[in-house]
């Protein structure tokens, strides 16, 4: 998903009226936001954090210092690791790591819904859609998290809802 489209999605899910204009910059289509007062904002996570503040939903950036750091870390992860990879093997490794990370967590930061969940959801969506039933079951924790986020009010929007089978078919693979 182009970063610009993603930011528009984020705007909507945050409940902001469409008032920002984005430009895609350079070869990697880095979004730039022209603000009324002050310098231009560059980069997906920077703009996303700005939007969250604009919507007065600062809690999405984490409520404690530790949580803020984790959110920051995952936003970075999202931009550097998820966006950079398109080949299957990389995605597999990524999902495997994420799967073990999410084993004891409901959200990326633990027990609070944050911007990191939203952006990682948007970032992973195109990969998760292509997963087979067996793969979804293999990355059970990712599936649970993903399914949870896509049902979070206002997040999914026009993105296709990914279907997760309720019954486990491949009990040995997990």
């Amino acid at each position, binding site marked *: 998903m182009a970063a610009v489209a993603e930011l528009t999605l984020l705007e909507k899910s945050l409940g902001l009226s469409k008032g920002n204009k984005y430009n895609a910059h350079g070869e990697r289509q880095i979004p730039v936001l022209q603000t009324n007062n002050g310098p231009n904002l560059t980069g997906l996570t920077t703009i996303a954090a700005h939007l969250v503040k604009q919507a007065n939903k600062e809690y999405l950036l984490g409520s404690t210092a530790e949580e803020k750091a984790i959110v920051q870390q995952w936003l970075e992860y999202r931009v550097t690791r998820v966006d950079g990879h398109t080949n299957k093997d990389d995605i597999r490794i990524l999902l495997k790591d994420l799967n073990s990370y999410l084993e004891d967590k*409901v959200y990326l930061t633990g027990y609070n819904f944050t911007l990191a969940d939203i952006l990682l959801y948007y970032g992973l969506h195109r990969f998760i859609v292509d997963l087979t039933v067996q793969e979804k079951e293999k990355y059970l924790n990712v599936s649970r998290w993903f399914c949870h986020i896509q049902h979070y009010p206002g997040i999914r929007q026009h993105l296709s809802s990914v279907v997760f089978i309720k019954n486990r078919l491949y009990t040995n693979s997990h």
Partner: protein
Amino acid sequence: MGFGDLKSPTGLQVLNNYLADKSYIEGYVPSQADVAVFEAVSGPPPADLHHALRWYNHIKSYEKEKASLPGVKKALGKYGPANVEDTTGSGATDSKDDDDIDLFGSDDEEESEEAKRLREERLAQYESKKAKKPALVAKSSILLDVKPWDDETDMAKLEECVRSIQADGLVWGSSKLVPVGYGIKKLQIQCVVEDDKVGTDMLEERITAFEDYVQSMDVAAFNKI
């Protein structure tokens, strides 16, 4: 449905499996369903049950707003995997309203109701039949050995004394004198008693009461008729 006993390791295991692909007991937001199950769990699940523990900690973080969570609390047995039998209720009646696929069980409630009615009818029929039938009186035939003190004891008098014992449900039968030795004879006497009314203890007591004649008394044979 239900998780079984959530205080036991097996119950927690079921919960753990159930929560592997779910963040909440029901739906995608914390609700009273979570609160109900949370309250049934006695404490944090062991660390090896990752999913149960994750869920537990997550719900714990909602502790303060517990009452304001959406949804209506249901019986604990209404939650959880459909293929696990509910053991939280008070027995068989509860398991009827779970909607799992029970291939071998009774099809629906109506039928089992019907079966129950039929059974009661039969029971009542049987009871009344039993009541009409004359009660069979259990009787026993007893052969008694009554031994005199010595060869000078008047055996005719002894027999007369024994036969003088009257009781409801006691009928004396034939008797004979059996030589024991040294000229001493013992009295062997048959009697039929109704088990409910006459016991051998009572017979023994009454017979040995004639202590002028009777030295001792034995039950030689006891047959149910």
